């Protein structure tokens, strides 16, 4: 998934944006035409092959198909689709593709080429006008803030680059919307790997049969995932070493094994009709009949627990969650897959302020008063960005407030 950022002003036609279709484009060159450009698309075209000569597939994430149409009204279909091994992208700046010069793939004179984006590429592009790229931010900053008679007379492009990327990271942690999540089924081993671009989680929840999410809570010290498992001599308590001088490690943690086998009812105090453990029964004074004792409110929940096992690099779940479908929502740093990440337009001004503040803080030629001003400015604009991204809409707040006079059982 690679979300795109739209050009300003918008260059895509309605068909290009909504249907992901480009063309049909006519070959009027007088001969076969092998090179075609699709410059108006926001999407950067990706082909499955990088070379027409050797025909070795290098990826399966190509994001378009091309069709050879005899007339402008021919319906694009599988029968006129150009085989993917006969197409490569030669220039990503203006989306130029090259076709293999053989029958059925090259476009003859007076015939047409038609480009269709895949559904995934089309989905990545929908909503793209609310984003701009980090490169845009960097270029805009250099034009508007640096140079002769500007605040920063002389600043290295590399410095802007560094501070812009740092700003993206920081804003990703607490300001940008957290949209990354994975749907997982908890395996019998009760552990799943930490996602590749994971920095921190925002919510872990399981989905019930209605698809409603129920938050799963962290262990918070209830159990643990030891980082090392040294094998201790039973008498001296000294770890045993291998013949190479390193501590011997146990294959499995005893704590984790016990936690995996634990009956959560013993922790949550969940009611068991056939056991009166922990319940004031009829032998007690009538006023306490049916009430419980010894409950800890923090752990009295039945959704389950998770922990991050740093030793194994996994999310581990309590045994009651086995085979449950969970949603792991997390944040990354915005730079995991491309250094030219996309930025919501809502935080554009905050980005400029952050870059300016960070650069000025490191410079000798900026006076203390200006530094203090830029710091306050950066803080205020970041706060504004956060409020904007919080999406506080009047109608939605009113809807929440409608519950203000409802009694809530405690």
């Amino acid at each position: 998934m690679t979300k795109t950022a739209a050009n300003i002003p918008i260059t895509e036609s309605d068909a290009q944006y909504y249907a992901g279709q480009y063309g049909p484009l006519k070959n009027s060159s007088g001969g076969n035409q092998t090179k075609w450009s699709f410059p108006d698309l926001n999407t950067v075209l990706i082909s499955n092959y990088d070379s027409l000569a050797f025909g070795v597939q290098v990826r399966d994430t190509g994001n378009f198909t091309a069709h050879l149409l005899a007339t402008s009204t021919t319906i694009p279909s599988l029968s006129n689709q150009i085989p993917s091994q006969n197409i490569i992208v030669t220039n990503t700046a203006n989306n130029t593709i090259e076709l293999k010069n053989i029958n059925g793939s090259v476009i003859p004179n007076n015939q047409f080429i038609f480009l269709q984006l895949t559904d995934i590429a089309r989905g990545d592009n929908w909503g793209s006008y609310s984003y701009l790229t980090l490169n845009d931010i960097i270029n805009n900053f250099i034009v508007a803030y640096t140079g002769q008679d500007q605040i920063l007379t002389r600043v290295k492009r590399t410095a802007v680059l560094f501070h812009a990327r740092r700003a993206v990271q920081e804003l990703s942690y607490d300001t940008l919307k957290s949209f990354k999540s994975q749907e997982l089924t908890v395996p019998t081993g009760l552990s799943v790997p930490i996602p590749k671009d994971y920095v921190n989680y925002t919510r872990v929840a399981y989905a019930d049969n209605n698809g409603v999410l129920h938050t799963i809570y962290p262990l918070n010290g209830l159990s643990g995932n030891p980082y090392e498992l040294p094998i201790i001599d039973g008498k001296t308590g000294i770890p045993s070493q291998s013949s190479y001088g390193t501590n011997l490690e146990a294959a499995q943690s005893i704590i984790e094994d016990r936690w995996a086998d634990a009956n959560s009812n013993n922790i949550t105090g969940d009611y068991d009709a056939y056991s009166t453990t922990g319940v004031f029964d009829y032998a007690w004074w009538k006023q306490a009949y049916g009430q419980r004792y010894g409950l800890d409110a923090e752990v009295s929940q039945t959704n389950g627990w998770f922990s991050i096992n740093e030793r194994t690099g996994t999310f581990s779940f309590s045994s009651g969650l086995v085979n449950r479908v969970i949603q792991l929502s997390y944040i990354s740093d915005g730079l995991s897959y491309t250094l030219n990440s996309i930025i919501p337009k809502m935080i554009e001004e905050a980005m400029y302020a952050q870059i300016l503040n960070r650069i000025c803080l490191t410079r000798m030629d900026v006076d203390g008063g200006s530094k203090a001003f830029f710091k306050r400015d950066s803080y205020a604009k970041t706060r504004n960005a956060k409020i904007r991204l919080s999406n506080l809409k009047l109608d939605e707040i009113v809807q929440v407030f409608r519950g203000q006079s409802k009694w809530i059982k405690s």
Partner: protein
Amino acid sequence: MAINVNTVYTTVLSILNKEQRGYLTPFEFNQVATQVQLDIFEKFFQDYNQYIRMPQTDVEFASRMDHTMEEFQIFEKSANASNAPTTNEYTQPTDLHRFGSASWTVGTNSPPIEIISNKVYNQIKLSDLTQPSKNLPVAKYNQNKLTVFPDPGVYANTDVVFNYIRKPIDPVWNYTVGAVGQYVFDPVSNGVSKDFEISDSQQTEVILEILKYSGVIVRDAEITQAASTLIAKEENNSKQ
């Protein structure tokens, strides 16, 4: 507009020949003229640097900075690398005199290439956050070559566009020998004689500078003294 080489030569001769002070041969004139044009040409950049640090005006025709830039704009040009590269090393154009900037046509909308030293390059490549990219490239500039990073893998001399100042063409007062053995000017249109390339607003200075050198050639200190005084006066006036 360029300065007519014949006008300069005849003016210089007129001044020198007044009171029979001496004579400047075409060969000597061509040598001195080349020297003078380069002197004035180099001074443009010194002046530009001084003016850019002074308070500016945006009143039409009054900005010294703009005026100086107009003087050398005729020498500003853009050209691709002069070699057919097989690596990420791009040789500068052969007529490059002063390097201005370079852009990277491999990137979207040809972004500028940041020129950095070897030391800085060695530092930035250590950090993930300062890695150069296709749209934010960097280059080391040495041995008249730009070594651009990231390496594009496929190379063409059109990858890099140099924006630079070229050197002015040397002025030449060419001649044929006339019927009585006199020097007859060979017009520029014949292709051998060359006008001064610097703008005609510098004509007075060109003549004064040539006179200054001519005084040395004809061994007349008075001419050198007078020319130097006038040049200094003009210089002071232009930088107040």
